């Protein structure tokens, strides 16, 4: 049976027919044909959709858009927007769901925008816009009034810690690089941002690139570097373009190059692009990549501050770390240190994703609780379902259950709870999430991205993935939980770099807080969240099925049989658990067990 990417049901209830739905169907089909979409979008009539007083009406799957009150004139526009561009036509939808817009009416006063202060407010391709917002005033102050040591002291007093995930003291890193004997030093900006779903760095690179450049130039002055690199992942072409424009303009304005601000300080920088390797976000692998070698980490010491790029002392910091520097210089270290907790000063950007109502980028001071982030800033769980867990820090982060909702967010406390800060990814999970599947998902990602250099990571994560996959497929064994625990300890202790060391975190945290789910999968072969396909089955409830044949017609593997107006039956041996029958059924007759 041909598989259509979209199915359209046109209501042919007598009331809708009376309102012209037959013409709607004809003109829909004709318009789709003329746009060459007839093979992708299937149009069929259906006995009843339900809102016939607002007819003619159609239902578009898989999204479930319900268009009402259609006229033949609406069809060409509808086809172009909905089927060609994939955008729903709001004015034709049944009572427009504008709750998202209304929910944003309470401004989230919990946010403090430091790094993101200019994003969305200036034209990133115009350096003058940045200068109008006091851009490069920090650099001017530093070059004309401060010595390199004084700059490092300011950064130290602010308490700035690296925002890439490790949270190492920025001033200490700068000082170490500065103190290493030698004439040549390098500055690198880590803009690889590989965590799936994280885009904090991208927002800054695309929206306020000069803040990063200014931070790097100040760092270069403090450390005594002459050349810098921005290592940006190739998957961010717009960020690369915006950076190129910014660098060009900065050079034109004499802010990069020889004798900046008429002083003896000269510094310039280049962009280098990544090529899709998550591990190249790790500092030594990144350096290897710039050097033209395969992106593999190496043992430390020696740290890059002592021997880094091309064997020279190198300071490598994250985009966000640099973006904070100009503000610290302009507003003073005390201002920065007044925000946050005792050991984690300042603010942090987070990419809030998952099952929250308001996903997107936020910036909050350290010390704010998870509850405030998820419910106040994020607007709560989508569809008002229950909260199950929040994962912080990206694929090497841990999942924290509801008992941690009042945990103030800072480096130490997240670590103690079994997770990490990471670069700022935060994925919220509702009650319909399977935690075993989540662990499997992240281990699969890490396994894919492992560079393969060391055995604990290369082989260890593969073994973990095999075990987790078996469990999700219903073939878990009683000894699997202990085996996972043992593997986790070994992989963490013996891996060469942070990727391997952090790889067991999703497994360890889900085992610790959601052990019952693992046991249910292994012993009872049950996935209570009804996610793991091998452990669920789809059935039709004979009490609700009216025999409209909709499910049978939409089933991609043709496993539903039944006559018109008679109860239909799903063949469990053929069923692939795709869920389409449940989506298209208007009578809630499909059950997942």
């Amino acid at each position, binding site marked *: 049976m041909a598989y259509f990417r979209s199915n359209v049901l046109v209501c042919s209830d007598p009331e809708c027919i009376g309102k012209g739905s037959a013409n709607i169907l004809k003109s829909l089909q004709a318009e789709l044909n003329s746009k060459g979409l007839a093979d992708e979008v299937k149009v069929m009539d259906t006995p009843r959709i339900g809102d016939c007083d607002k007819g003619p009406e159609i239902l578009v799957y898989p999204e479930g858009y319900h268009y009402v009150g259609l006229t033949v004139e609406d069809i060409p526009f509808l086809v172009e927007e909905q089927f060609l561009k994939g955008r729903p036509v709001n004015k034709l939808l049944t009572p427009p769901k504008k709750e998202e*817009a209304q929910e944003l009416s309470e401004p989230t006063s919990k946010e403090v925008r430091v790094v993101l202060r200019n994003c969305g407010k200036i034209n990133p391709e115009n350096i*003058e816009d940045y200068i*109008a917002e006091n851009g*490069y005033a920090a650099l001017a102050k530093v070059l004309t009034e401060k010595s390199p040591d004084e700059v490092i002291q300011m950064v130290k007093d602010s308490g700035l810690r690296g925002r890439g995930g490790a949270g190492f003291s920025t001033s200490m890193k700068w000082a170490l690089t500065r103190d290493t004997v030698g004439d040549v030093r390098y500055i690198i900006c880590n803009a690889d941002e590989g965590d799936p779903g994280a885009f904090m760095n991208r927002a800054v690179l695309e929206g306020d690139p000069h803040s990063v450049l200014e931070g790097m130039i100040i760092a270069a002055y403090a450390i005594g570097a002459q050349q810098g690199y921005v290592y940006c992942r190739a998957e961010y072409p717009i960020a690369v373009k915006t950076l190129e424009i910014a660098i060009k303009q900065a050079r034109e304005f004499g802010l990069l190059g020889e004798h900046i601000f008429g002083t003896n300080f000269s510094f310039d920088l280049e962009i280098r692009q990544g090529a899709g390797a998550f591990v190249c976000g790790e500092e030594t692998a990144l350096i290897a990549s710039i050097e033209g070698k395969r992106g593999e980490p190496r043992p430390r010491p020696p740290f890059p501050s002592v021997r880094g790029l091309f064997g020279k002392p190198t300071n490598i910091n994250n985009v966000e770390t640099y973006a904070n520097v100009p503000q610290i210089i302009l507003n003073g270290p005390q201002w920065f240190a007044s925000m946050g907790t005792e050991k984690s000063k300042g603010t942090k950007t987070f990419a809030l994703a998952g099952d929250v109502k308001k996903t997107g980028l936020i910036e909050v001071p350290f010390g704010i609780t998870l509850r405030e982030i998820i419910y106040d800033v994020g607007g709560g769980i989508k569809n008002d379902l229950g909260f199950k867990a929040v994962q912080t820090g990206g694929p090497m982060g841990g999942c924290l259950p509801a008992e941690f909702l009042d945990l103030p967010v800072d480096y130490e406390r997240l670590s103690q709870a079994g997770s990490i800060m990471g670069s700022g990814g935060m994925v919220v999970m509702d009650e319909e999430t399977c935690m075993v599947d989540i662990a499997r998902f992240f281990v699969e990602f890490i396994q894919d991205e492992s560079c393969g250099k060391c055995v604990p990571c290369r082989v260890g994560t593969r073994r973990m993935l095999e075990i987790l996959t078996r469990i999700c497929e219903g073939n878990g064994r009683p000894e699997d939980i202990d085996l996972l625990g043992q593997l986790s300890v070994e992989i963490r202790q013996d891996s060469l770099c942070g990727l391997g060391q952090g790889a067991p975190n999703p497994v360890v945290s889900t085992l610790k807080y959601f052990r019952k789910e693992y046991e249910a999968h292994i012993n009872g072969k049950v996935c209570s969240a009804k996610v793991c396909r091998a452990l669920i089955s789809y059935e039709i409830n004979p009490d609700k099925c009216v025999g409209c044949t909709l499910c049978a017609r939409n089933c991609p593997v043709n496993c539903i049989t039944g006559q018109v107006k008679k109860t239909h039956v799903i063949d469990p041996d053929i069923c692939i658990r795709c869920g389409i029958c449940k989506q298209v059924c208007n009578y809630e007759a499909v059950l997942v067990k």
Partner: protein
Amino acid sequence: MNTIKSLDDLKRIREEALAKRKFTETSGATQVIVGMGTCGIAAGARETMKAVLEYIEAKNLPNIVVTQTGCIGLCEQEPILQVVISKKEKVTYGKVSPEVVKIIMENHVEKGEVVETHVIPLQG
């Protein structure tokens, strides 16, 4: 050229940039700003920008400055379009498809009537 050789140079450029802004505000010019970060473009901001420019050209509207900006962080509301008329407060619209562009240009930009149904109030 614009080479900054001293603190005074920087101050001068800053003042010029601020003056340019003030001029745009007081001269009665209207600013239309389209979010063109990756999230915006993924949501169709290029079409939105095109619709804005085409509308201005078709109706020959004078005194309009169209610029772009990056990601504000409300990625679910992209494409985002902002309108600033002279000294009035910036109004931010969400989910601005080319079709909604026409509504906003006609009502807000030309007649000065904010299109409440599409507004998303921002903080700060």
